[in-house]
């Protein structure tokens, strides 16, 4: 008598839990969608409102303006200037430094812990690298502003103490644990039979790691790099503190830079709601959003293609 009753009750509970986790999976998508709608709505007046367009429109945002300062970001001015190209350049040059600094280090560390280090050493190294991810970015930024900047300046002999290299390296510190963790997992999950087969053919451990395991894990490693790139491009506090925040149109890494995300962080709190400046900041937000979204889509597609090629599956 009792048994079927508990059965139905547990079935019911199972169903409820299933719905709950289904809802939580979809809530992330709903959240993303709502964020997109909200930011898009606040950015739209750049295209539609005549009042806002007088002060800031697409051509003013992207095309050269006057002779003296063709690209200038001076939102608080008699005649506000909203050229966002220097901000794009600043973001990209710091991201470039971060990626160039972090990815070789992170992949090297992942290759070492997954292929060469004894188990106890890996258990020691891995948590420590991952601990780096737990440092709040404002702390990393403060460290870069106070301590690291002087060493970087001396090492490279740079005129500006706060510059794109300094901010890029600090960003790299935030990127390393992400790339490392994902890459290490990818390398570790390469089947043991690959290594055994390679060794049996007379390959040295290094040949096995570099020519067999690494290529087999390439899709996962690329995914790691894309995640790291996404983190670097959107990171705010580190660049706000360590880059000098000067909106200059120059690819020179030894000069200061102002990033898109730091601009939003610094200016949104003070801006008059509904002004052209306000809408431009949301426009920057949606540009950043679309940029990372497209990049992720592309990377996803590329990784899937590569997976097919490397593993011959799917």
């Amino acid at each position: 008598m009792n048994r079927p009753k508990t059965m139905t009750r547990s079935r019911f509970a199972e169903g409820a839990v299933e719905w709950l986790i289904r809802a939580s999976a979809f809530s992330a998508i709903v959240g993303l969608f709502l964020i997109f709608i909200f930011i898009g709505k606040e950015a739209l007046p750049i295209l539609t409102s005549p009042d806002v367009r007088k002060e800031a429109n697409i051509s003013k945002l992207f095309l050269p303006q006057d002779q003296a300062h063709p690209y200038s970001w001076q939102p608080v001015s008699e005649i506000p200037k909203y050229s966002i190209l220097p901000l794009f350049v600043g973001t990209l040059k710091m991201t470039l430094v971060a990626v160039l600094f972090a990815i070789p280090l992170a992949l090297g560390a992942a290759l070492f812990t997954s292929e060469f280090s004894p188990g106890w050493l890996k258990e020691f190294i891995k948590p420590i690298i991952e601990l780096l991810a737990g440092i709040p970015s404002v702390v990393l930024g403060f460290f870069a502003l106070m301590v690291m900047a002087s060493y970087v300046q001396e090492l490279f002999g740079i005129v500006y103490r706060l510059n794109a290299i300094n901010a890029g390296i600090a960003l790299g510190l935030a990127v390393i644990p992400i790339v490392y963790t994902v890459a290490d997992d990818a390398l570790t999950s390469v089947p043991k039979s690959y290594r055994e087969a390679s060794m049996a053919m007379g390959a040295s451990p290094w040949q096995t790691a570099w020519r067999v395991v690494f290529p087999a894990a390439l899709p996962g490693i690329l995914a790691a790099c894309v995640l790291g790139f996404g983190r670097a491009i959107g990171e705010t506090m580190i660049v706000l503190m360590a880059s000098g925040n000067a909106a200059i149109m120059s690819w020179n890494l030894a000069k200061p830079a102002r990033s898109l995300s730091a601009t939003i962080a610094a200016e949104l709190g003070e801006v008059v709601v509904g002004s052209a400046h306000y809408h431009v900041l949301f426009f920057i937000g949606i540009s950043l959003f679309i940029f990372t979204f497209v990049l992720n889509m592309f990377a996803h597609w590329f990784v899937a293609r590569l997976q097919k090629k490397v593993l011959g599956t799917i």
Partner: protein
Amino acid sequence: MKANAIIKSVAILISMGLIVGAVQAADKTITIKGSDTMVILGQRWAEEYMKAHPGVVIQVTGGGSGTGISALINGSTDIAEASRPMKPAEKALVKEKHGKDVEEIAVALDGLAIYVHQSNTLKTITLAQARAIYIGQMTRWEELGVKLAQIIAYGRENNSGTYAYFKEHVLGNQDFAPEVLSLPGTAAVINAISKDKNAIGYGGIAYGKGIRALKVSKDVNGPAVAPTMANVLNGSYPISRELYFYTAGKPEGEEKNFIAWILGPHGQKLCEQVGYYPLKKAGKAAKKKA
């Protein structure tokens, strides 16, 4: 020991009761929001005023001059604190939303200093020289007779009242050069300058390790004046600014009493305790200058 602990906890309970009682007894809550420069000043005023007038609760929060003004426009604060004058567009928004004219009340005085690294041999600077540096016309220390290379100019983010003040009063409303580095907060500016021997920067009058504030003169012939309290008060220091309260419409009731108290001897004396300057004497001097 035990008795001590009991006395302590009773004391805590009683004081909690008093606080709750005060909150319940409060017939009027005044909210103040705005300038980060002024938040400590506002809190000191609020504390002292609440001590003297137990029936009143005053809440003070920061966020920045623009944040406070936005809050005034949206009606989410009674008083906005601002370290820069309100823009005509913002005043119009208040009028539009609330149908009342904005009331501007200068409540204290603040001086801006121009700093260099402590090893820098430069002692004085004219306002014209500072302008030339910050709009990008002067880029080498040699032009000021200092044996250093390039001038690295530090400033504040464009959301700060200090930035707006410096732009208006030193740069004559010209744009900052794009190469000027902007940092969040006067503390960050001072830290950066203390570690960069080619640096120059501006901020509230403060004394930090490794930096030195320059004497400022209005023009080449004018006397160079050190940023000290006496000089700000007698109006001889050329870059000092008023700090403001803004309300929508004339302040009434408890708000009016509070503002009158701030402008009175008690309130003005508190300015000095938190590192600003009282209005009275300097207010006249500032007007004379303008």
